[in-house]
């Protein structure tokens, strides 16, 4: 409705902008990149597009121009996105930067913002996150990475885990312990140049054979004092902000919710399990479970459309989404039998192998970005207002 009314009364200024964007895109977007597969590897063309968009400020169109943004209004962003979509172009900056950029903008000093934001926008610095540790997962505030204050700066020692994109990043924002006597109030948020001596990155092999995450080993990594984001020992507040932005972005981008390779579960089941004369799946129990799953998927999609952003919605969608994705994967491998359990080789089709790998990797959906149980904690405490446990004396 809002869109309709704004379309009928297009201001001439907006039309001028649209034409300007269109002209610039036709000159600068490499048509070869209209095919999504061509963007997956870091080619010269990909770099060229990122640099061009970055210099224009259109990677972060709503950000102020002084930080490398486009200084666009919401309406202007809509026009930009329409024009990008029209020719199959895309925004070259990833979610990690978009999310962390918000945190940096919110908590950074003027120096930090003017140094980092433009480099982030141009893709010069790409960022990864050093939050979780082997001993601090769901209970993130139990983290132990030591940051010892010295005259030269902070000396970092410890280990981080589950960092995605570490091999492609050159900067890392970390949560470190600057006070060992207090839990939440002893954490600081610090920005680390990954080229500093003592910073080691090791990929982790997962159950599906892929390695999207890394471990970070920091040994006497020296970080300048001015790289603290926010105040010393107030890093937990910054981290909560960052996680909230992340959850909302993930929940409202629909990415990571329930996409499974291959044909739909219904067709897969009809093909592999068989149907009777009336076209019904012969396995009545499976049929009922598939129907139930598809109804829930509809409910999820309708909720996605209905919901305004906010913490309640983010947690509802996160849990419903991971549940649906995992159920679909379980149903898929169940339907395929042994054929859905192959690891590699010609005996299996690409779809079959992908379904199995997706089933395996999909187990992470209810663990990463706040586990299923953490989302329930958030809902019960923050939304339903259920009480905290009184500690027993």
């Amino acid at each position: 409705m809002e869109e309709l009314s704004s379309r009928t009364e297009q201001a001439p200024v907006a039309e001028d902008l649209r034409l300007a964007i269109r002209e610039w895109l036709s000159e600068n977007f490499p048509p070869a990149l209209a095919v999504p597969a061509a963007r997956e590897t870091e080619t010269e063309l990909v770099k060229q597009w990122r640099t061009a968009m970055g210099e224009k400020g259109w990677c972060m169109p709503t950000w102020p121009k002084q930080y490398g943004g486009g200084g666009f209004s919401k309406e202007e962003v809509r026009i930009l996105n329409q024009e990008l979509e029209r020719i199959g172009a895309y925004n070259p900056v990833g979610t990690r930067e978009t999310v962390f950029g918000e945190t940096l903008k919110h908590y950074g000093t003027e120096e930090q913002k003017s140094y980092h934001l433009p480099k982030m926008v141009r893709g010069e610095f790409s960022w990864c996150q050093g939050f979780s540790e082997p001993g601090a997962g769901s209970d993130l505030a139990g983290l132990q990475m030591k940051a010892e204050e010295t005259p030269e700066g902070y000396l970092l020692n410890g280990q981080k885990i589950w960092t995605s994109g570490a091999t492609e990043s050159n900067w890392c924002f970390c949560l470190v312990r600057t006070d060992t006597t207090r839990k939440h109030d002893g954490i600081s948020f610090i920005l680390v140049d990954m080229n500093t001596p003592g910073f080691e990155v090791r990929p982790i092999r997962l159950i599906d054979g892929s390695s999207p995450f890394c471990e970070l080993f920091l040994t006497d990594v020296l970080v300048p004092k001015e790289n603290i984001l926010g105040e010393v020992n107030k890093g937990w507040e910054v981290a909560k902000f960052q996680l909230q932005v992340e959850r909302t972005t993930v929940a409202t981008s629909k990415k990571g919710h329930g996409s499974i390779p291959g044909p739909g579960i219904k067709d897969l089941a009809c093909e592999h399990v068989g149907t009777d004369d009336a076209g019904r799946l012969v396995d009545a129990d499976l049929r009922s479970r598939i129907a139930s799953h598809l109804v829930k998927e509809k409910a999820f999609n309708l909720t996605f459309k209905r919901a305004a952003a906010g913490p309640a919605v983010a947690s509802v969608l996160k849990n419903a989404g991971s549940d649906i994705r995992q159920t679909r994967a379980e149903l898929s491998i169940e339907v395929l039998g042994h054929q859905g359990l192959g690891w590699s080789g010609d005996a299996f089709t690409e779809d079959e192998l992908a379904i199995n790998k997706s089933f395996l990797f999909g187990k992470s959906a209810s663990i990463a970005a706040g586990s299923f149980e953490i989302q329930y904690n958030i809902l019960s405490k923050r939304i339903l207002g259920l009480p905290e446990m009184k500690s027993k004396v």
Partner: protein
Amino acid sequence: MIALNEEQIMLRDSAYDWAQECSPVNAFRKLRDSQTGLGYDPEAWHHIAEMGWPGIVVPESQGGLEFGHRSLGLVLEALARTLTASPLLSCAAVANAIVLGDNQSMSEEWLPKLALGEAIGALACDETARHNPERVSCEIKDGYLSGKKLFVHEGNAADVLIVTAKLNGNIELFAIPTTTKGIKRTPLDMSDSRDTAHIEFDSVAIDPTWQLKGGKLLLTTVLNRARIYAAAEMQGLARQAFETTVEYLKVRSQYGQLIGAFQALQHRAAKMFTELELTQSCVDAALDAIDEGDENISEMASVAQMMACETTNLVTNEMIQMHGGVGMTDEHDAGFYLKRARVLEAWLGNAAFHRERFAVLNAF
């Protein structure tokens, strides 16, 4: 998903306020205890009629408000929160049948009365204890109807019945006045203490003008709408059952703790909240789908009903369990929610019925 307009928000809020203030659960308790045998609250119905709600889905030309199905859903949800014993849902379903049945004389006869709450309508479409509207053995031969309809909601209070019957081998729908000779109604004492009847037709002379146009297709459309209304009613009931339960978790102490601090209960509450939100989306979208004339209305009705049945079932069970012993007592309201929930689940197809129907509609 369509945002509510200002009038709809006002309607929703006034229905909510009215139910909380003028028709609390205690009013239902009084009705049940009154031993009058009435399965609805005439005083509440009088107020509801004054506010015009029975006319929400009746065309303006017939004295209705013509305010849309989403609007009716908002009222049904609000009234269900306090288990308001009213025939509003059945009356709206009957109005739909008559409007869609394209029958001028029946429209003129019944719609103005239905719109003002002066006549009560009931759907008489089931002949078995389990919902199965395609099984019709009531038959009209030589102008006389014989057969029996079971578990007709609001069947005792009804002035007009929408009856399915075979005529020349086809399922047809008729708007039959309950004053017609040969109709015998037997009230049933159901656990929800609401109005339910078996209705027998013993050679009832059928006036040909009572026949609605559309046959089986009309039946499907009328039932789809009624199912979506019922999903809205279940959603309101479940929402209140949930909120009452969460409030209890915040006041009941055991082992020196408020029981709401126990994670085992917190996570079950969070699950209920999640299911309620998912179901709400389906109910809202299904009501919108009626208003928009969506072709996929059959599927939307089954999606909404399956979700509403499952969620209502879960929440009313948890309401009893989380209240513990007090939830088992007649003095507490939890039992009312459980009992009404099960009757609503059984009425127009339970979760299993709609899972099956969803699969058939999707050709698997």
